[in-house]
């Protein structure tokens, strides 16, 4: 305990100095001049309390650590369950149930919940896409939001200038994001680890700043509004049809209900997520999926076996970017309005957090993490400014308890049957 006395004292003094300067003194206007005013006694008491807390915490930190270690770890999944889960039939059944639940759910709940679920699905899509790059190919991409922005703006601009519909826009957005992924990946994928992370971080910012400043094309910080909503085989989800079109409720002879559109958007997002899941599942069982894993393990060995590391990485980068493009297009269509504000670095960070929290490479984990990461800020709304603090706390606790993520990846292994 005596060993900790000095650091404890120092940290308490630091707390007093910092909070004393930040909270204890205020500038106040008296007439035309500014004067320094000391804060009231209550603030002084709070500062003293905080300093005392930090002092005691540091003094007894060894005991606290010992106590901390006694906290039981999260329960392991029972063995019987894992054996059952390993069976492909059980696996399929589980996914069927999950999809069925997702299909029925919107009919049982209200409009705002469906809307929130749609947002969750967008993040699921982004998480799954980034999962290819980070979790499967092992490339740390901090600028993933750049491709998301490219997808969103591709659709928004094409709709604004050429009046194209959602479905064409979806394809265009995917293709455009893929092209950007390819062009960016080409020079930077020779870099490793940290360097790659920095370059991609820069890329994400460049895209955002470009969108912000290229006012003549993108309308700059004012954003683009009136982006057309998606339609179902030419049927619009609005009260009155635009010229030469038909609305959904007219076609089916039901009364207009604005929930229909929200539900349609939800199902559309679900469809995109299912498509993403299907593609990733196939990729994992394809030569390219195995090459990603091999590359993550030993790049030198891969080269010695005739695998071109740059090409394989480029593949992952491009495919990941494509899904971000799809998600971006859907996002633009759902919001009806986009601006560079929606594509800041924090979005990249959240998507990356989803991947890490879920367990790198694990798809169910990513879905679970996307739900948590989207719902948590909503649920914690009552804590308002302490919301992010709560968020950070959760991440720290996660990393202590389950550094491998919620559901670590179990890759489908190719079996040799003899």
């Amino acid at each position, binding site marked *: 305990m005596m060993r900790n006395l000095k650091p404890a004292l120092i940290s308490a003094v630091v707390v007093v100095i910092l909070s004393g300067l930040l909270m204890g003194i205020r500038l106040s206007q008296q007439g035309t001049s500014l004067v320094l005013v000391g804060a009231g006694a209550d603030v002084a008491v709070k500062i003293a309390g905080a300093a005392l807390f930090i002092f005691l915490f540091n003094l007894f930190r060894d005991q606290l650590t010992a106590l901390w270690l006694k906290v039981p770890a999260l329960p392991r999944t029972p063995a019987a369950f894992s054996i059952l889960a390993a069976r492909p039939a059980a696996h399929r059944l589980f996914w069927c149930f999950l999809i069925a639940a997702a299909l029925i759910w919107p009919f049982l709940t209200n409009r705002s919940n469906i809307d929130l679920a749609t947002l969750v699905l967008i993040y699921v899509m982004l998480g799954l896409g980034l999962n290819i790059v980070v979790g499967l190919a092992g490339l740390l991409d901090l600028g993933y939001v750049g491709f998301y922005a490219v997808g969103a703006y591709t659709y928004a601009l094409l709709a604004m200038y050429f009046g194209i519909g959602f479905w064409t826009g979806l394809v265009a957005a995917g293709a455009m994001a893929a092209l950007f992924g390819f062009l960016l990946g080409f020079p930077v994928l020779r870099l490793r680890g940290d360097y790659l992370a920095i370059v991609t971080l820069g890329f994400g910012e460049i895209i955002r700043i470009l969108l912000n400043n290229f006012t003549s094309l993108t309308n700059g910080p004012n954003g683009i509004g009136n982006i057309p909503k998606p339609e179902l085989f030419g049927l619009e989800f609005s009260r009155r049809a635009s010229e030469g079109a038909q609305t959904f409720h007219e076609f089916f002879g039901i009364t207009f209900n604005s929930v229909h559109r929200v539900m349609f958007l939800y199902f559309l997002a679900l469809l995109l997520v299912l498509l993403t899941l299907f*593609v990733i599942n196939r*990729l994992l069982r394809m030569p390219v999926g*195995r090459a990603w894993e091999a590359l993550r393990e*030993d790049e030198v060995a*891969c080269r010695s076996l*005739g695998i*071109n590391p740059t090409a394989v990485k480029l593949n992952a980068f491009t495919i990941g970017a494509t899904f971000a493009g799809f998600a971006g297009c859907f996002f633009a269509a759902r919001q009806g309005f986009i601006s560079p504000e929606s594509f800041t670095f924090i979005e990249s960070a959240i998507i990356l957090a989803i991947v890490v929290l879920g367990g790198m490479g694990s798809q169910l984990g990513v879905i679970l993490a996307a739900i948590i990461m989207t719902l948590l800020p909503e649920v914690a709304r009552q804590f308002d400014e302490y919301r992010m603090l709560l968020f950070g706390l959760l991440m720290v606790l996660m990393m202590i308890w389950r550094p491998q993520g919620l559901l670590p990846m179990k890759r489908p292994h190719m079996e*040799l049957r003899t």
Partner: protein
Amino acid sequence: MSAATPLLDVSGLCMRFGGLLAVNDVALQVHEHQIVSLIGPNGAGKTTVFNCLTGFYKPSAGSIRFRGEEVSGVPGFKLARKGMVRTFQHVRLFKQMSVVENLLVAQHHHMNTNMLAGLLKTPGFRRSEKEALERAAQWLERTGLLEFANRTAGTLAYGQQRRLEIARCMVTRPTLLMLDEPAAGLNPRETADLQELIAELRGEHGLTILLIEHDMKLVMGISDHVVVINQGCPLAAGSPEEVCRNPDVIKAYLGET
């Protein structure tokens, strides 16, 4: 190709790292169906020569001709596709992947990697997967690893990992197999098995083999030709018997007396 053109013809090979001349003017010829050994004391630059030959280093000077074609400076993965495949001094398997998957990754270049075909599981794609699995099974059987096919590669015993590495090279269908100290860490029994395997690869599968090895019994037993290097410089070359009797070689290995 005429018998006179060597499969691999190296001349004047130099590799400089800053002020250090690690390999100096090494020449080497490997003819088809030969087993050639590269020997030398520790730190002589054998592995550096290997790294130059397989495209992991770009040599500072010299020419490397594979089947008469200049390949100096060609990236490693391209050389591997041309049929020059190597193993490593320290086993480099994909340890988290299963044994059979190690062999599938190695066949990447030969498989149907068309994205659309894979997504839709076309018959062509299935056939390619099946062929790859069969080829893998065939080599696992030959190296005595068939029963471990679905085990994680990292859990194999050391000797088995060594054999798996050779099997992994073989499924890439090489013409020139380059083994970097394949007997390192093996017991005498396993070394004898290895010798048999190498002889069989040459005899039945028509391979040409370039070998770095410290185990003199193995080297002298199977080599047609031995090249000795010392401190980066070529010291001697010839048949195993000639090299054994060469006073310079004896001096390099045993030190000056």
